[in-house]
């Protein structure tokens, strides 16, 4: 817990220092190609870019804690508003992806089967999910389903107001792209846990009682093996942030990830700082929650020295 605050400050300080490394005045950037040097200098002074770094940082921190994340250099709009508008898109993408990955991983790996072919195939799909870079998967999906077959649109977002079917048609490829990695990873974690669980006594008892394979698998084994997967969701939050950034960029989705990439491309410092901090803090938070959930659920490790 106490690790979070220094992390946040460290990262924001790092980001703030990037101003020094960035050449060119933000005012020139804001005024565009036709502006004159005098106007640029005047705007510099107005925004206080000629102040020392520490002073600027303190000012930013104070304002941020009051909910004022400043104004974007590129759109001149409130950063807090831009973040507020983008956050729901990313959250929806993340939720769909995790749900899909988790449920598929659990269900597919619980199905009892002795057929080696199926287990080998699932194992292969796992590896593919983990190692195919999400940008390659995304672009391949776009090429196949949008360009060649023309079944799906290339952009990943349409507002719900455009209709449920339209919305789903737009979001399905990004969700597939983002969830593929997690499907692979969750499968591995889940199978290991399932393997351990099925060796335990109570499963043997259930089997001895003569309960059907499927029932043993889904009603007895699975609920006990799920836990590590759930905590793993929290732990993989960091990777998820990266995955969302790439996926949103490929599919031009108006979420936090693309906002972040755009702010980096345009050196839109207020946005970059605010979004960067938001991502880091959320990820750390999710890791923390995952740790807590695991400790609560698993009494054995509460006493890990």
């Amino acid at each position, binding site marked *: 817990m106490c690790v979070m605050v220094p992390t946040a400050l460290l990262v924001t300080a790092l980001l703030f220092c990037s101003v020094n490394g960035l050449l060119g005045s933000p005012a020139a950037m*804001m005024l565009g190609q036709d502006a004159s040097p005098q106007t640029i200098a005047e705007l510099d002074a107005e925004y206080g870019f000629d102040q020392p770094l520490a002073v600027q940082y303190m000012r930013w921190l104070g304002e941020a804690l009051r909910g004022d994340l400043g104004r974007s250099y*590129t759109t001149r709009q409130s950063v807090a508003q831009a973040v507020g508008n983008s956050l729901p898109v990313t959250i929806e993408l993340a939720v769909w992806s995790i749900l899909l990955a988790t449920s598929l991983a659990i269900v597919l790996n619980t199905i009892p089967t002795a057929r080696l072919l199926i287990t080998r195939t699932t194992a292969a799909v796992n590896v593919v999910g983990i190692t195919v870079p999400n940008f390659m998967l995304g672009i391949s999906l776009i090429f196949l389903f949008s360009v060649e077959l023309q079944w799906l*649109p290339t952009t990943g977002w349409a507002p719900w107001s455009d209709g449920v079917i339209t919305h789903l048609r737009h979001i399905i490829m990004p969700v597939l792209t983002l969830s593929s990695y997690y499907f692979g990873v969750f499968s591995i974690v889940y199978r290991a846990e399932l393997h351990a669980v099925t060796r335990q006594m109570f499963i043997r008892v259930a089997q001895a009682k003569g309960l059907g394979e499927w029932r043993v698998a889904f009603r007895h084994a699975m609920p006990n093996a799920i836990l590590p997967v759930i905590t793993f969701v929290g732990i993989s939050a960091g990777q998820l942030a990266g995955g969302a950034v790439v996926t949103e960029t490929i599919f031009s989705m108006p979420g936090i990830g693309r906002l972040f990439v755009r702010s980096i491309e345009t050196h839109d410092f207020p946005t970059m700082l605010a979004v960067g901090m938001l991502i880091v803090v959320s990820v750390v938070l999710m890791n923390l929650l995952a740790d807590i959930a695991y400790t609560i659920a698993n009494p054995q490790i509460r006493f890990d020295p």
Partner: protein
Amino acid sequence: MTWDIGRREALAAIGGSLLLGNAARAETPQSGGTLNVGLVNDAKTYDPIYSVEFSERVVLYLVFNTLVKYAPDFSIRPELAKSWETSPDGKRIVFTLQDGVTFHDGTPFNADAVKWNIEKRLDPAVQSPQRNLLAPIIASIEILDPQRVAFNLTQPSPGIFSLLGDRPGFMVSPTAWQKLGKDFGGQPVGTGAFKFKEWVRGSQVTLEKSPNYWEKGLPYLDRIMVRDLAGSVVGLQRLLTGEIDYVGELTPSDIVPLERRTDIVLAPIKVGRWYFLQWHVNAAPFDNAKLRLAFAHAIDRGRINDITMRGKGTVSNGPTPEGLWWYDPSIRSFDYDPAKAKALLTEAGYPNGFDAVLATPQVTMFQQLDQLLQEQLAAVGIRLTLPPVAASEWYSKVVNGTTNMTPSRWTQRADPDGLLTILFDSKGFANTMKYSNPQVDALLQQARTTYDIPTRKRLYTEVQQMIVNDLPMMPLIFSAEYGALRSNVRGFEWIPDQIPRFREVWKA
């Protein structure tokens, strides 16, 4: 004296109406419908007094009118000013305004509004970027009566008409501007064919037909939605599905898959963007004229056109493309001659080659251009590195001198003085090359203060050749670009400033 532009304008108007007449006879415009315009939108404000970004003008030309407007051949036609007269000494122009025009908020449009608009731009406290365009020219504005306003100029200035058809000419409602202040940029009020309804930033702008628009019969459309695009190619996909009706800034490569489709119409621009390579010429190493000449002869402009434009652009020999009256085919730049380039490089003092940095703004066209330049220059011993520069930062680095060599591009203005002065006059505010030639300054001053077209043409031909010879920049190409529309969209025509106009567009 009646001035030449007036006569020309009259002829153009007659000729123009014949063309329009032809088109009109083919089909009668239908009213109604919504037009979805796809735009890579970097708009920051829709307040014309502060507007700087290229894409903002798409909306500005719909919500506002200008005092005069550009015809498709860049000649000047009446708009809010229905006629004008220039005094014999050329220093006073009296504009007669249209009657019965009101702003969307009910404020009447009259001479007071015009005076207010121009003075706001001239006011140092307002800090409008247009101030240094108008201040050297305008001495004062005089109201003669509600429909007539006089511009008293510091010197004869034919260039003012070009300015009054662009940003400085957008007439803003004084009442609304004073009431809304900084918020006016998000709720602009003008006299235009469309009222500004809503702006969802990062998403779209909604414009609705202005019911009492003063140009009778216009507009045909009920509504225009300007939808943000992440890029032109993404926009292309949406055009194909019918989500949007127009997408612009397409390169010749982008349109290859479109050529077979019957539901899409391509609209090539008439006058291309000017691409050139520029240097800082008042400091080492590029103050060395032989070095720059070596660069010039090493560059194969034809090949650049063939590869980046599929041959559909034109090789540039100077700042002006064919089709504009101040173009002259006699203006020639330096030919592709790698052997000569190598020899010059040695003469310039670099027998073992020369290393330099070429700024690469992260825009596809510049990236392609830079890589081709690097390849061509490497062949004569000039080794370039191409560090990427964020597109938004690039220009400020050029301005403050961090970058001393960069590709550049500009769109044409309706008056030759527009581009040539800001780029090549010693005091030009966009003269990032730090180029200074007193003869050029003198010629430009002469040319911008006379209304006689043949004289101006002669002067501009001379000065352009002089600039080309001095080589503060090496001209490369004029681009070929396309707008693509769904085939049921009619009435679209390009103006050479590359801003798409939709006022007179209708849907079949």
